């Protein structure tokens, strides 16, 4: 089985909308079943009288997390293809606090307000109107806070990678934490809400019977325990290579990107790819192609990027990049490209292009414009071929680049990707 099905192209966009609708029905149904159409029930969470929010949310998280772990570990799902919202630490702290305050004041979160409105609750409808007003206001302010919104960027990163802990171990820790929180929550409901634990629906009730709810908790704990010892859920550490296919692709040079082409993409502000600098940190710090990210060869683990992400690699010359290309292909990455000639050629053709009789004046003018854009300088005709050290490399330009009209010529801008996250 090759899942996620959509990412393996098993069906197209049109079909995905039908699936979206059906998944949404399931989402809304269970939210309403849980009582989340009622703002009063939701808000009771924050007065410790009814901890349904905690219970529903963490049961859902643990169910999906353990399920996904098992499916990925057994090879049925390629976990690297499941979309991760990138982490922007400070904006997410600020946004989270705002959401929490809004939750207590409004009584809902966006998803539950839909369910509330759908079941006739007027406060849910007003809440939705408020949210739309908030979005309209935010859009006008956004241009002024865009730098803040993009600050403390950490990329797509999971807790196991951040703390360098085994994925399965963290799965187990989250299961245990959730079960602990459930027990504490039931205790709080009894103390602050005066609710006696329901003998059939609680974990800490007096009866010693193995109720279905307790069976569910034990089951989740068992899968968590399995995860703690079962290893990494990411594919790729034991991939097989089709050497024939690789050979054909190498022969065709289909994996190469010309420096000039890359320059055009960067100037246009395209973001449909990830540019990877393979050199050590020190050299990266001295100079790198704008927008590039430093990932030394040894750090190219199978989970460093999503397997279907477009990766463009470069190093000083083609050699090192070719090694990395092979490594990533072997790990199952599907669209890896190499900047032909590496930084060497980038320097010669993009930063310091030389006028020669073979190129027209207008073409050279465009090259000169590109060179200046990247902080380089065009070279006059007949100038001696600069040695590596002869030309100082420019300071790396800031990531936010202005757009230059009509550069890159034949490279039509790639389709603008719409946001995938929430």
């Amino acid at each position, binding site marked *: 089985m090759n899942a996620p099905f959509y990412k393996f192209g098993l069906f197209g966009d049109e079909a995905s909308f039908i*699936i979206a609708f059906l998944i949404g029905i399931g989402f809304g149904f269970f*939210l309403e079943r849980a009582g989340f159409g009622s703002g009063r029930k939701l808000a009771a969470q924050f007065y410790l009288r009814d901890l349904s929010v905690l219970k529903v949310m963490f049961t859902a998280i643990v169910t999906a997390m353990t399920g996904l772990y098992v499916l990925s570990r057994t090879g049925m799902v390629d976990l690297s293809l499941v979309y991760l919202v990138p982490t922007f630490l400070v904006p997410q702290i600020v946004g989270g606090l705002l959401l929490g305050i809004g939750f207590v004041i409004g009584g809902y979160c966006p998803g539950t307000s839909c369910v509330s409105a759908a079941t006739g609750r007027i406060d849910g409808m007003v809440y939705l109107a408020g949210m739309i007003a908030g979005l309209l206001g935010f859009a006008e302010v956004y241009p002024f806070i865009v730098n803040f919104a993009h600050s403390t960027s950490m990329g797509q990163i999971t807790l196991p990678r951040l703390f360098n802990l085994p994925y399965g171990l963290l799965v187990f820790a989250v299961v245990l934490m959730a079960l602990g929180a459930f027990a504490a929550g039931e205790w709080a409901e009894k103390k602050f809400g005066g609710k006696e634990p329901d003998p059939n629906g609680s974990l800490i009730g007096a009866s010693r019977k193995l109720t279905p709810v307790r069976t569910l908790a034990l089951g989740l704990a068992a899968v968590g325990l399995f995860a703690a010892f079962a290893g990494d859920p990411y594919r790729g550490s034991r991939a097989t290579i089709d050497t024939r296919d690789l050979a054909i692709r190498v022969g065709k040079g289909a994996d190469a990107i010309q420096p000039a082409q890359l320059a055009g993409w960067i100037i246009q502000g395209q973001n449909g790819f990830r540019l990877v600098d393979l050199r050590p940190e020190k050299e990266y710090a001295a100079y790198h192609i704008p927008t590039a990210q430093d990932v030394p060869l040894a750090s190219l683990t199978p989970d460093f990027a999503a397997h279907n992400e477009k990766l463009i690699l470069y190093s000083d010359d083609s050699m090192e990049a070719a090694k990395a290309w092979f490594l990533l292909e072997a790990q199952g990455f599907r669209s890896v490209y190499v900047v032909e000639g590496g930084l060497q050629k980038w320097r010669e053709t993009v930063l310091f292009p030389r006028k020669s009789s073979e190129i027209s004046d207008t073409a050279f003018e465009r090259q000169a414009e590109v060179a200046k854009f990247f902080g380089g300088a065009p070279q006059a005709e007949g100038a001696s071929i600069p040695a590596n050290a002869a030309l100082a490399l420019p300071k790396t330009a800031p990531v936010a680049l202005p757009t230059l009209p009509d550069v890159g010529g034949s490279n039509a801008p790639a389709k603008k990707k719409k946001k995938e996250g929430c």
Partner: protein
Amino acid sequence: MNMKQSSPKPYWNSYWAGFGLGLVLLTSFVIMGRGLGASGAFTTAVATAVHEVAPAHAENNPFYAEYLGDGSRSPLKDWLVFEVLGVFVGGFLSGVLANRLKFAVEKGPRINTTRRLIFAFIGGGLMGIGAKIALGCTSGQALTGGALLNAGSWTFMWCVFGGAYAVAYFFRKQWI
């Protein structure tokens, strides 16, 4: 008999409702390679509406532009938009089956309806803003990212609970 039919049925046990929700989320991971969401659909809707009224304004605004796509098809043809339509339908269906459809205002006994609705509006506004700064709401970040052990999502989740508990006392008259 009549009485029985019109009185709302009790809510499901939280653990089973959560288990069901978790399975829906897992299904979304396996079929689509993405989780659930809510606020994004409203952003797309707002961006599309603004684009209808003032196209130039929407296209020049970097926030709207991100949700308008490349113009090759309607921005409303979006996965989250269809998903949220489903949320309305699913919530409605569940409400019908449990006799919970009712035009009413959810509030505690110590606040009047007008004030409650003003608070709902303000809370909704804050949520809209917060969700955009954090790149997601409780569905897209806390639930989805939580299950994926996403670093930012867990940070976000603790901050939602932290923010809510920090101010809950001041709004207690609204709820209890």
